[in-house]
């Protein structure tokens, strides 16, 4: 179990050790969250590395990663706990076969921890030899308000109430990371309990660092051009601008194609890796690609 970072610089170092290139604001939030034991709420466009933070933290801190993927209709029985009904029925029948049935005792026996099936949230509250786990509640905006309201108890007191069993409280609170793509607004009550951070697109310098860390096989010149091009089309009027994940995908696609530099033909052929909406692809296709590419190359030579 690695020790928790003691300063913001430490946190930055820790994250880059997990090959996550973070900016200082994000490192600050992560540091505060670890220090204060508060959940982090990360919002941002798809593919900017929100989920990745949880993965990296669990890796560099040597903690277990427990992931709860949210979806519409997510309920307590798949997020927190479920009873082992078959086992319970067996227990009831066995008690009957033995003869005397003490109702109070039977109820205690049947609704005991023995028959409890733990789901992610409950697992995250259980003690772990590697230290409190990292709990990733991914894409919270996909579930409904009812579940969000349920999370309030978990996120503020790190406890879960099971009617048949009582309150289960974590001895050491887990490191909680909540992400949202903002397909709807998260309620203020939940936001109030978290440290909030908006994860934006990285600037050119940081994106180049990310590319170096994550796609080391890409030649330096190609990397520079990729970053330049992606940065340029993000400022275009697109329905969905490409995220960092798309940049990395594109880089590895170009490496597979043995490209050493960008040219209009290869960009047009691989644009589908970068842009995921037909309108956007159509808008960028043809002369626009060439114009942007020329600009990027001119900028690169000017700098060099």
């Amino acid at each position: 179990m690695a020790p928790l970072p003691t300063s913001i610089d430490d946190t930055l170092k820790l994250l880059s050790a997990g090959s996550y290139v973070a900016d200082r604001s994000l490192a600050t939030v992560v540091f505060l969250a670890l220090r204060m034991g508060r959940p982090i709420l990360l919002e941002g466009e798809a593919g900017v590395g929100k989920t990745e933070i949880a993965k990296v933290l669990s890796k560099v801190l040597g903690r277990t990663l427990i992931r709860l993927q949210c979806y519409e209709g997510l309920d307590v029985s798949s997020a927190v706990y479920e009873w082992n009904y078959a086992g319970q029925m067996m227990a009831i029948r066995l008690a009957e076969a033995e003869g005397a049935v003490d109702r109070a005792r039977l109820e205690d026996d049947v609704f005991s921890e023995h028959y409890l099936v733990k789901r992610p949230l409950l697992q995250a509250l259980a003690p772990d030899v590697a230290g409190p786990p990292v709990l990733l509640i991914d894409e919270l905006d996909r579930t409904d308000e009812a579940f969000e309201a349920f999370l309030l108890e978990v996120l503020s007191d790190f406890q879960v109430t099971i009617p048949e069993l009582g309150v289960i409280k974590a001895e050491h609170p887990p490191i909680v990371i909540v992400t949202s793509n903002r397909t709807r607004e998260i309620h203020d009550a939940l936001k109030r309990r978290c440290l909030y951070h908006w994860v934006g697109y990285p600037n050119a310098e940081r994106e180049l660092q990310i590319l170096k860390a994550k796609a080391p096989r890409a030649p330096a010149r190609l990397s520079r051009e990729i970053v330049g091009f992606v940065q340029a089309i993000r400022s275009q009027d697109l329905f969905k601008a490409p995220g960092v994940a798309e940049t990395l995908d594109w880089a590895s696609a170009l490496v597979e194609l043995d490209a050493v530099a960008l040219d209009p033909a290869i960009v047009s052929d691989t644009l589908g890796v970068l842009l995921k909406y037909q309108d956007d692809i159509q808008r960028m296709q043809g002369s626009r690609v060439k114009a942007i590419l020329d600009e990027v190359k001119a900028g690169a030579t000017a700098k060099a």
Partner: protein
Amino acid sequence: MDAPSPTANDGGKLAENIAYFARALREAGLPVGPGSVLDALAAVEAARVGTREDFYWTLHAVFVKKHEHSDVFAQAFRIFWRRKALIEKIISTMSPATPPSRNEKERKPDAGSLRAAQALLKQDKPPEPQEEQKEEFSARLTVSEREILQGKDFAQMTAEEIARAQRAIAALTLPDDRVLTRRMTPSVQGLRIDLRRSLRKSLRAGGAVIELARMERATRRPPVVALCDISGSMAEYTRLFLHFLHTLTDARRRVHTFLFGTRLTNVTRALKSRDPDEALALCSAQVQDWSGGTRIATCLHEFNREWSRRVLGQGAVVLLFTDGLERDGAADLAVEMDRLHRSCRRLVWLNPLLRYDGFEAKAQGIRAMLPHVDEFRPIHNLQSMETLVKALAAEGSVEADPRRWLRRVA
């Protein structure tokens, strides 16, 4: 017509006055039942009220159950429990000799006080008022008035009629449209077996018999997103439509409202404040382009880019409220409408221009938008608003089919 005077030492009078006060609060919109009148009496007696402030907070503790009601209560209290001179003033405005005061508009009081004052005026009325006066002061609409208002175009209404229409809107039965969710809820006739409840029930009876409990899919109301044109050509309709949206926002949880003229403004939070007057005042404070021009395509583009993914999730219904008179860029408009249509579950276009019998979908903007909407409906009077409410609860109908209008011109 005995004026209620706050003489706290006289037990009989006090009871009467509290009952009057409770009625006033009820008229002002607070949910005050007869039970709370008894509670209030008991509380005032128990608290041995000495000062006015104690009295205030004692009644407040009993009558106010929601934070939003505090302001209305404060105003009602101030007006009701004032010394005689002012009560007499209220009475004088009520007397048949002087016509009912028309100065409501000039002294624009802060939210809630107008309603509290109106409620008090109404309640302090002489015991046997003449019929006309009743009409003047009635907060609810009588049947005949209602009928006239029903068909009247919003644009032709006087200020008073608009006020009445607003009340009628507030009283509308709102759509009860529901979509299935993936969540389960207990049900007697459900198809699936709820094992957890079954086991608990069985254990309660000693575990001898396992009686199966059942469950079914839960339903919920889909979110509503309203895009509302506030350009000059729509001015007469926008205010009442906003009242409609406020009522809707009040009744269900997920209603998002955007106003657009030359730019897009999100007024969802403003409309969330409970008092309609306050909500609308907040809206207009936020918007910079009231009654200006329209750039529908630009605003829709902004909505699609910035907001559609944030508010159109989970099966939203979009109410697009505009006359569709776009001067430039019909091609862009079609593209944006297409994108909007594909991002939501149902797109309903509400167009007050449909009030004209001879309406034809000839304008360029209208022709560009029509192919991309699911329904095309009028929204110029109370009747059409009621039809809309019914339509939201039901599935699409023939008379709102946009293709009908396109065919007619073709």
